[in-house]
């Protein structure tokens, strides 16, 4: 089963990358605010059903893919 994990800096955590992107978009003439830059992890997980797959990916997030102190994560499953 395919899973996509979206990892973001938590609200309130300084995100200088997001600020740099926001400023660069401003230079291009786009009026944007609150740009935040995260990370996407695509993976294929062996699991019998979506609930089991989600639980497995959640454990991956807690143990490795995200640092819970400074990052939040969202999991989506496909197929």
């Amino acid at each position, binding site marked *: 089963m395919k899973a996509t994990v979206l990892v973001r*800096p938590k609200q309130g*955590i*300084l995100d*200088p*990358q997001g600020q*740099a992107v926001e400023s660069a978009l401003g230079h291009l003439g786009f009026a944007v605010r609150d740009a935040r830059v995260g990370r996407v992890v695509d993976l294929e997980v062996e699991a019998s059903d979506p609930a089991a797959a989600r639980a497995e990916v959640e454990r991956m997030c807690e143990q*490795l*893919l995200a*640092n819970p*102190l*400074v990052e939040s994560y969202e999991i989506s499953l496909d197929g």
Partner: protein
Amino acid sequence: MASPQPRIGVVTFPGSLDDRDMLWALAALDAEAVPVWHAEEQLPDLDAVVLPGGFSYGDYLRCGAIARLSPVMNAVAAFAADGGLVLGVCNGFQILCEAGLLPGALRANESLTYVCRDVRLTVERTDTPFTARCGPGQTLVMPVKHGEGCYIRPDHLPQEQVVLRYGEPVNGSVDDIAGVVNEHRNVMGLMPHPEHAVDPLLGSADGAFVLASLVDSARSRALAIA
């Protein structure tokens, strides 16, 4: 009775850079510096362990996130849980945070630029095994060289765990925190590099205040066990 040379291990991960400088500095400060390979599942007989700076595993995912899964880190965690002295410098600090042996996390510098220069630090605590040779409020000058040294502390980090603060803007660290200890004060991490500042020829010898404190503490531990 002759004062024994404490045995201090320095772990080399794939991508460590400062392991040799750390071995050299510890030996110059009269410790027996012992190289330790990251793939070892057990530590040799040691009185302290140092995780040096560098870019372990290419800093992939997050700095220190992969290195903390190295076989040797289980042994380092057990050593720390047993009260053993563990010091992490720069990438070593990042690894200790990722491993949960120290509170907090290190993220990209506020400036998004790599910072490489001597900085002033203020010693906040002298009652730790890593700063016992310092005076209260002493200013130390040591180099930093990092792109991801912005320290994010947990919400309720006790003040007594903050050991070093920057005396000038460096990387956007919350409360200017440059170095912390764990609750039991036997594990410390700092972003500046004491091993690059142990000889006036290198611009500063202030790093020796930290490393010689560690050597003293490791020696006391060796004598207590002997």
